[in-house]
């Protein structure tokens, strides 16, 4: 089916992006393995969707596709939460840096300079 090829192409592109990031030292080997495993599992599920039905049966969910959607939503929310916390930490670091620079520079005051 065309959708399987489209999704597979997307997953391979994502996998290639992870490998490129690792080769450019933007991510470490642990993250490469994590992302690599994720995209390979997705490709496997695209071509063997019946596997999800088997897992859905174990989990007590009606259809395999439903299980995939539930898990995907949970994972996305978790990632969103982690990214949002990370942005907060970065914002605070940035403010700390801006503050340190402001306090390091002597305050400006023309009136004192004129004395």
């Amino acid at each position, binding site marked *: 089916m065309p959708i399987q090829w489209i999704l597979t192409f997307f997953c391979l592109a994502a996998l290639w992006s992870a490998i490129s990031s690792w080769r450019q030292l933007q991510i470490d080997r642990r993250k490469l393995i994590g992302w690599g495993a994720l995209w390979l599992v997705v490709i496997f599920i695209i071509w063997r969707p019946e596997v999800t039905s088997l897992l859905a049966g174990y989990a007590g969910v009606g259809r395999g596709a439903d299980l995939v959607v539930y898990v995907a939503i949970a994972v996305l929310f978790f990632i969103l939460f982690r990214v949002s916390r990370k942005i907060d930490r970065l914002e*605070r670091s940035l403010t700390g840096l801006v*503050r340190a620079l402001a306090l390091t*520079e002597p305050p*400006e*005051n*023309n009136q004192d300079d004129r004395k």
Partner: protein
Amino acid sequence: MNMPDRPTSLSPNLGLTIAVIPAYNEAGNITDIVERTKAYVDEVVVVDDGSIDRTSELAIRAGAKVLRHLINRGQGAAEQTGTDWALNQGAQFVIHIDADGQHDPADISNLLAPLATGDYDISLGSRFLGAAQNIPLARRLILGLGLIFIRAFTGLNLTDSQNGFRAMTRSTAQFIRITHDDMAHASEILDQIAEQKLRYVEVPVTISYSAYSLERGQSNLNSLRIVWRLIIEKFF
């Protein structure tokens, strides 16, 4: 010899009092607010929060010390920077006052009076105990909802929860640490007052709403965003 420029108190009985004015593109107002505030404190420090207009230049000309944030970080961040500087200067009292001209510096004496007796740690301005001029209905409603939220969130029973005009003692300024860079810092300060069990008092102040100050102030929609952020920060 170049000695460090450390201000001394105008009123020895009270102790060194420094007003912190966070300012972002406030060239239109900064001269007036600095000149009027100078009369009531020993030192005025303007924290230019990454302005791209003449805010710094005009504040210096008006007689303020100016600290510069290289990039805009928000009012809360600028207030903390100014407070840190004031503490480094040995301030015994720190005043927070807005740059947009909403606050009347003449109220500073009233804010300081309860602190001078040693009975309170922090004075919070209240427009509803004092005078709120030209306050729009929508803003009044939002402020009312804010009060309910603050009461539920902190347990503090206030008449005005979103007033940025306040005075605090040195030890209070050392206790309170603003981590919310944006407007949420006003609620964060109240939360820290409740957590630290600081002795607070509300003091009547005059707030003058103008088209300019309404435009510069937070939008009503932004108030909801602040509530959301405070809940997330508090519980997650």
